């Protein structure tokens, strides 16, 4: 390993069934979100409706909420003074890096410290490499070694550190666009890492969608590939020796799906070859269809471009190494602070030069759309801080640097072939190849590539499918886990293709979609069946009856007559996007004191979506009162001393069964903020914690209050159970009882010595783990959690209080735990949210400019927690989707963002005038029942507008575009043909 940290050495606690448990030897980790804590409750109305976001006042008054807002002097315990650093970067990827030249700075602006690769190497400060993330996930070197050629544009070669801001700022300004500061030597040509991986998903259905398939990835195997140059190679159907793939990585978001290629080859060689035989059958059927007049075969090449997510807060971090206490203090803008802490621990572990015994991590409110999830930036910050000469070191990208170093959405080249029956319009085959450009660091590229391929079907059922994908290494700036995660690229092109197929069949485009839409119980292209009713047909029916769709031809005639030089078009697209990762976790602590003050400490991290508001609403809806103190971004729950091997995706059933005997073991500990996972998966724990207190604390306390007084009180002559309890303004009521203020409930609960606090941890592998917990006074409770701890009230007997020895809580050791089976790792995604969009636009035939006049969205959000947050996500997603469809685009290589000259002057982002800000509308499907869970939606909302816009342009001018974005120049060229 590049880091020199041998995983087996690192883990000292022991080895269980071949899996080493490591958490115990990590430096103590602590992370929490800056500026969460005591708050007023004015943001929530007495009836539980949200008047404004919990964090609204801090944000609207410009308080320090982002990591970027803090300097060392603002952080308790940190030094008053701090240092600042910035990188010099390589913009030549064909010549070896030689050295740097800072002579242009003169003597006064020379850095206090110049850091190069050799300095870091000498001190053992190396890029962390974790086995569960795969080889080269964060690249090879922090700083490019002299004599090496940069593997990607914009690779840092040196870090300049200044002990005061004024010199730092002046030097940085002087070196911006300076091309002579980095010197190159011999020409080497491109030197890139090996390609990241190739995979292929083949399925041939049985007689019916629900019959056992002849071949399916879940039933048989995913086919893993190797490369000949940049071309994927696959096992041959006829055996000629074992075929060992390049790499094997299950396409789970968040990592952890790495498997040994040789072992997988040995285990699945035979089914992979059968899969290739199945692919051969599909290819033969396509060829036969080309010669069959009853069949329609459409083959198209498409392209979805590289974009910069352009999160308004550029990447930044601030870190301080306190050698006297061997403590690493880190403030970081990250969507996954827990992951930062975990990887940081690997990075610094056993470093002799800079020994670290404790890491204290604080994170800010942030925003990233994926770009701050598993980014290398936090680790650059940590590496830098060892060289601050005792001062904290702050790194904060400006926008040029952000374009140069920040993660991008993958560009993907696509080749799709669809076979349909001309008479019925039913789809028969989808064959596609997705060539995913991962740039020069591996990151999640192979995972994104696979998710793209497995999303290719959009909302349709295909009896036969052959979906291949490759993640290739190039000199482009690194691409990673961006909003949409490959599905935006794949489904957009599929949805453009569907419209062309409809046109060639002479069929209404929505009618064709209805005939082929996935229905409840239909398997996807991997063979998995999604949770519940997809509701695709319902949404298609709504779209087909919308006036924009119904009247589009008359509207076109009328508009074009009234607006010479403009062409009118309406387009539609519908998609569905998964949410969750397949190893979803949540953890929180929820407690109240005798005065009724509720405290919630929660793992959820605010990334702008309003998740921290929604989690509190969930508590209010059950307990009648929102938390008085809320702390988010928590990563260290002393009440839940859990440990994990962090291999939830690759664990075997035998390993899991053995590890699960330890009541402190869980498959994974804390989530990243990604995969649209907050409202359903992370909120699941919140709802369970509040429900637990409602049933086991609020109910007995309320019973005692309602039963007090003469003749057994108001409760005596009726019948009421805990299920009748309802949150009412100011407290708890239900069953016709007089409402009780939560404060009175709390007082009584403490007097009675009831449970007054609960900390819990939940885990889902497309199914929630359950276990029995024997809780004193409550008996055995079977709960959808894998760890729980409780706190007893003030008047609880000493014997109970004596048990509160784990972070002040009584950790209840579970029994009869039922973790979801390891087999469910092969189930693929099961939680989806459908979304559709109708776009009305006009095209200026002189300039090629597209004006979005109106759009109407359709979404199935389940039971909504905070309506304004949902519509806000949806409106924002639409704008981002319009940017992808029409304007945002980055060249990949020498003239791309890696050259350090890109900024918003060249990179056009959607403004209000581009998004039909005043006219847009939306319809949200009513939940099927009041028990339908809320659905993750932050990603899906930006996807259908992309293809709907493309289809509308086609309606306007008659030309089909499969290469995104559809810029004014492309349209002008098409109009000139």
């Amino acid at each position, binding site marked *: 390993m590049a880091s020199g940290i041998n995983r087996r050495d690192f883990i000292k606690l022991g080895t269980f069934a071949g899996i080493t448990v490591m958490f115990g030897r990590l430096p103590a980790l602590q992370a929490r979100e800056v500026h969460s804590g005591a708050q007023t409750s004015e943001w929530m109305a007495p009836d539980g409706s949200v008047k404004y976001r919990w964090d609204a006042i801090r944000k609207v008054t410009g308080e320090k909420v982002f990591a970027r807002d803090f300097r060392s002097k603002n952080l308790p315990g940190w030094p008053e003074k701090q240092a600042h650093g910035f990188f010099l970067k390589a913009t030549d990827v064909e010549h070896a890096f030689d050295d740097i030249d800072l002579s242009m700075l003169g003597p006064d*602006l020379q850095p206090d410290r110049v850091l190069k690769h050799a300095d870091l190497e000498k001190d053992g400060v190396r890029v962390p490499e974790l086995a569960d993330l795969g080889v080269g996930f964060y690249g090879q070197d922090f700083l490019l070694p002299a004599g090496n050629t940069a593997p990607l544009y914009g690779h840092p070669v040196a870090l300049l550190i200044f002990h005061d801001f004024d010199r730092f700022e002046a030097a940085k*300004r002087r070196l911006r666009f300076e091309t002579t500061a980095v010197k190159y030597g011999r020409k080497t040509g491109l030197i890139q890492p090996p390609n990241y991986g190739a995979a292929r998903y083949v399925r041939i259905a049985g007689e019916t969608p629900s019959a056992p398939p002849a071949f399916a990835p879940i039933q048989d195997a995913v086919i893993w590939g190797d490369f000949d140059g940049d071309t994927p190679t696959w096992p041959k159907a006829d055996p000629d020796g074992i075929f060992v793939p390049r790499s094997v990585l299950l396409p789970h978001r968040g990592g952890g799906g790495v498997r040994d290629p040789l072992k997988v080859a040995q285990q699945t060689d035979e089914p992979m070859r059968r899969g290739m035989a199945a692919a051969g059958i599909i290819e033969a059927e396509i060829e036969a269809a080309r010669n069959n007049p009853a069949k329609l075969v459409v083959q198209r090449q498409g392209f979805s471009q590289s974009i910069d997510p352009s999160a308004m807060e550029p990447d930044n971090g601030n870190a301080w190494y306190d050698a006297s206490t061997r403590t690493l203090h880190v403030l970081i803008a990250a969507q996954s602070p827990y992951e930062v802490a975990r990887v940081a621990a690997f990075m610094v572990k056993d470093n002799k030069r800079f020994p670290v015994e404790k890491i204290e991590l604080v994170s800010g409110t942030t925003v990233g759309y994926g770009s701050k999830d598993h980014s290398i930036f936090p680790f650059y910050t940590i590496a830098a801080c060892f060289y601050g000469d005792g001062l904290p070191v702050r790194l904060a990208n400006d926008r040029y640097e952000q374009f140069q170093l920040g993660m991008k959405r993958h560009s993907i080249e696509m080749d799709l072939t669809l076979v349909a029956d001309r008479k019925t319009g039913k789809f028969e085959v989808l064959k596609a190849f997705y060539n995913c450009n991962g740039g020069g660091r591996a990151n999640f590229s192979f995972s994104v590539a696979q998710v793209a391929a497995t999303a290719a079907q959009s909302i349709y059922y295909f009896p036969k499918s052959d979906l291949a994908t490759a993640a290739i290494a190039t000199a482009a700036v690194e691409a990673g886990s961006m909003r949409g995660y490959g599905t935006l690229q794949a489904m957009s092109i599929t949805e453009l293709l569907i419209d062309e197929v409809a046109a060639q069949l002479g069929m209404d485009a929505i009618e064709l979609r209805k005939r082929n839409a996935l229905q409840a119980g239909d398997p996807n292209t991997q063979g998995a069946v999604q949770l519940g009713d997809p509701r695709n047909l319902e949404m298609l029916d709504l779209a087909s009856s919308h006036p924009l769709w119904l009247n589009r031809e008359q509207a076109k005639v009328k508009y074009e007559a009234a607006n010479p030089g403009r062409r009118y078009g309406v387009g539609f697209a519908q998609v569905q996007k998964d949410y969750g990762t397949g190893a979803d976790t949540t953890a929180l602590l929820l407690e109240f004191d005798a005065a009724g003050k509720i405290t919630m400490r929660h793992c959820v991290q605010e990334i702008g979506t309003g998740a921290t508001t929604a989690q509190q609403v969930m508590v209010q809806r059950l307990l009648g009162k929102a938390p008085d103190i809320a702390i988010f971004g928590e990563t260290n729950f002393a009440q839940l001393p859990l440990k994990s091997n962090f291999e939830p995706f690759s664990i075997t059933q035998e390993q899991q069964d053995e590890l699960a005997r330890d009541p402190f073991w869980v498959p994974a500990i804390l989530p990243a903020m990604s995969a649209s996972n907050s409202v359903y998966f992370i909120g699941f724990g919140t709802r369970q914690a509040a429900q637990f207190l409602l049933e086991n604390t609020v109910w007995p306390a309320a019973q005692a209050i309602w039963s007090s007084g003469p003749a057994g009180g108001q409760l005596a002559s009726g019948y009421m159970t805990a299920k009748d309890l309802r949150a009412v303004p100011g407290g708890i009521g239900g069953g016709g009882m007089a409402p009780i203020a939560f404060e009175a409930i709390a007082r009584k609960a403490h007097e009675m010595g009831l449970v007054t606090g609960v900390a819990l941890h939940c885990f889902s592998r497309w199914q929630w783990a359950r276990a029995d917990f024997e809780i004193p006074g409550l008996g055995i409770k079977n709960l959808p959690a894998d760890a729980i701890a409780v706190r007893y009230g003030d008047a609880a007997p000493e014997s109970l209080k004596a048990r509160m020895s784990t972070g002040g809580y009584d950790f209840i050791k579970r029994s009869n735990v039922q973790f979801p089976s390891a087999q469910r790792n092969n189930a693929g995604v099961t939680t989806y949210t459908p979304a559709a969009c109708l776009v009305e636009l006009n095209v200026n035939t002189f300039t090629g400019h597209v004006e979005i006049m109106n759009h109407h969205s359709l979404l199935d959000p389940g039971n909504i927690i905070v309506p304004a947050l949902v519509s806000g996500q949806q409106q924002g*997603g639409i704008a981002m989707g319009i940017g992808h469809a029409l304007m945002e685009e980055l060249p990949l290589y020498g003239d791309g963002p890696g050259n350090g000259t890109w900024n918003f002057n060249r990179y056009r982002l959607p403004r209000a005038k581009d998004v039909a*800000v005043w006219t847009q509308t939306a319809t949200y499907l009513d939940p099927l029942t009041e028990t339908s869970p809320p659905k993750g939606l932050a990603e899906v909302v930006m996807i259908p507008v992309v293809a709907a816009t493309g289809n509308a342009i086609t309606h306007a001018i008659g030309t089909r575009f499969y290469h995104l974005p559809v810029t004014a120049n492309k349209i002008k060229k098409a109009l000139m043909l």
Partner: protein
Amino acid sequence: MSIEKRSLTLTINGQKVGPVDAPVGMPMIDFLHDHLDLTGTRFGCGQGICHACTVMEIQPDGIPIETRTCIFDAHFFNGKTLITIEGQAKRDEHGEVSDLTPIQQAFIEHFSFQCGYCTPGFVTAATVFVESLKRQPVKRADLQSRIETALNDHICRCTGYVRYYQAVQDVALKTPGCVID
């Protein structure tokens, strides 16, 4: 190359700043952040394109205008009067927010922002716009297009702008004298 410094004096949020030596060439936003610890004004692009960094400059006649701080040297503001986001809401003697401005109040009630990074710039632009309407009212039919013109330079990446614009429309309609039929 060395750092040339010059004396700088200005008024920010009602407080006199300086005279203080400030580097020549340092953008105002850096001076605000790293010399005055006023970090609510947000850095977006450094080119004056995204308008995340705007503050209100109060002209000698009392009329506020919107000014970008990422493209102007701190010394450009010598002798001028600025209101940054920290100076918009009223605060009590403990420094706690006691009263939001109508624009700030509308933004929070409309759930106008998500990450909130661009919010200070939107507060600035919307405040300047509503103040301009008080001096020169707009016809109701033209209000939406005037809002677009006033705010279109501001980039928001989270919200799609809808709730910002609705909030500003709401304030304009509710503020006496801003909108005429």
